[in-house]
């Protein structure tokens, strides 16, 4: 199946909420500087996303094959036991916004610009999620991202890019030799319908992570996936 490109995603940011998040007093000089940056960003930003509906072909104990491409991950393999249709995806804040951010130099403004780019990526992911919920008719979408678990390392970006075909290029995302996504505020992964509702956070021991969405389940990796923590590092 062909990739679907979503490239008309607005940068929607709740300005008062964002000011609060950045700890900027609304009446301060910094608020004025921030509003100026945000206004520039809104003008420039073109968040984008792409996905490709794909069929799971075969699987063995530790790998699955999707559209002729093999992915090595025990957790992914177990998570994809049920769904046959999966959605490899890519989302980005957009190269336009990253280019704009390189023109900003003070630490504080760079921090704000970085946060704006992250918000833009959030807009792209939200648009992608909405699109996939509509297609699948399900609210129970889960996602896995290469590099976010030892079991599915960053090097698995390569097969993921293979499956996505021309889609990354069409939304301006490239992969460097060190598996870095450019623009930096981009994300990739595979979405799938799951009754269990999987998120990476369940298996990630970084308790203090600001992005944590659900609690870490200490024994889940061994119990459900039969993976001994620390013995699956692959890069």
């Amino acid at each position: 199946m062909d990739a679907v490109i979503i490239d008309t995603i607005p940068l929607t940011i709740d300005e008062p909420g964002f000011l609060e998040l950045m700890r900027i007093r609304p009446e301060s000089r910094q608020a004025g500087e921030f509003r100026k940056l945000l206004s520039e960003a809104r003008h420039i930003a073109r968040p984008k996303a792409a996905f490709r509906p794909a069929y799971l072909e075969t699987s063995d104990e530790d790998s699955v094959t999707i559209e002729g491409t093999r992915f090595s991950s025990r957790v992914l393999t177990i998570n994809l036991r049920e769904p046959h249709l999966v959605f490899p995806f890519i989302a980005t804040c957009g190269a336009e916004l990253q280019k704009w951010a390189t023109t900003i130099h003070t630490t504080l403004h760079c921090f704000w610009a970085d946060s704006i780019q992250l918000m833009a990526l959030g807009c792209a992911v939200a648009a992608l999620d909405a699109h996939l919920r509509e297609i699948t008719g399900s609210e129970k979408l889960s996602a896995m991202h290469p590099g976010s678990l030892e079991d599915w390392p960053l090097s698995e970006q390569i097969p993921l890019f293979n499956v996505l075909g021309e889609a990354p290029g069409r939304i301006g995302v490239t992969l460097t030799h060190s598996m870095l996504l450019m623009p930096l505020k981009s994300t990739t992964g595979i979405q799938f319908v799951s009754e269990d509702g999987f998120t990476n956070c369940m298996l990630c021991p970084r308790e203090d992570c600001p992005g944590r969405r659900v609690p870490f389940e200490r024994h889940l990796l061994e119990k459900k996936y039969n993976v001994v923590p620390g013995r699956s590092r692959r890069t």
Partner: protein
Amino acid sequence: MKESIQQVIRTIDELDIDAICSVVQHCLDEGISPEEIIESGISTGLSIVGDKFESGQYFLADLVMAGEVVREAMPVLQEKMNPDMTAARERVILATVQGDIHEIGKNIVGLILSANGFEVIDLGVDVSASKIIDTARTTGARLIGLSALLSTMVGSIRDVVEASAKAGIRNQLKIVIGGACTSDDLRLEMGADAYGETAIDALRIFKGFIAAT
């Protein structure tokens, strides 16, 4: 403690960037030395912010803003400072390792270290081991902070450790690592000296190294 020094502490804790210069100027007008303002006011204020960050009461944005508040005050203080004090600052080299270009975390560490009196030599991102070690040799910096977010690039940390050994200066340096893919286990594996999870950790570690020498 003098009320005007307490006001410096409160201004930093409240992240009031618009007020800090006049508060510091008021201290100077009262005859308080820049050194005392830094030691009793700014360091204490930053320490309170650091504690709040570690307890989850403050977030990264608070930490960055506190660093900026201090940065705003520094020109006012430096104007009145004894030149010997500014020359004596401990140098620390910061870099994102080769193959990685994430910089926000490193920049925040730099901001916090600068605000606490360190002289930060920021080499930027995607920095080779040889450049880091050459800089250590030419500047005499004993402290190195390496940032890495990509698990594929952690080998670059070992490159820095090995390059310092090859240059014969490994035992003169303290190499601290941080970033999303790093951990204390990785620190052991790569032969670095310490791992810091946050900018406040990094500050504590670098201060500890100085105190120990």
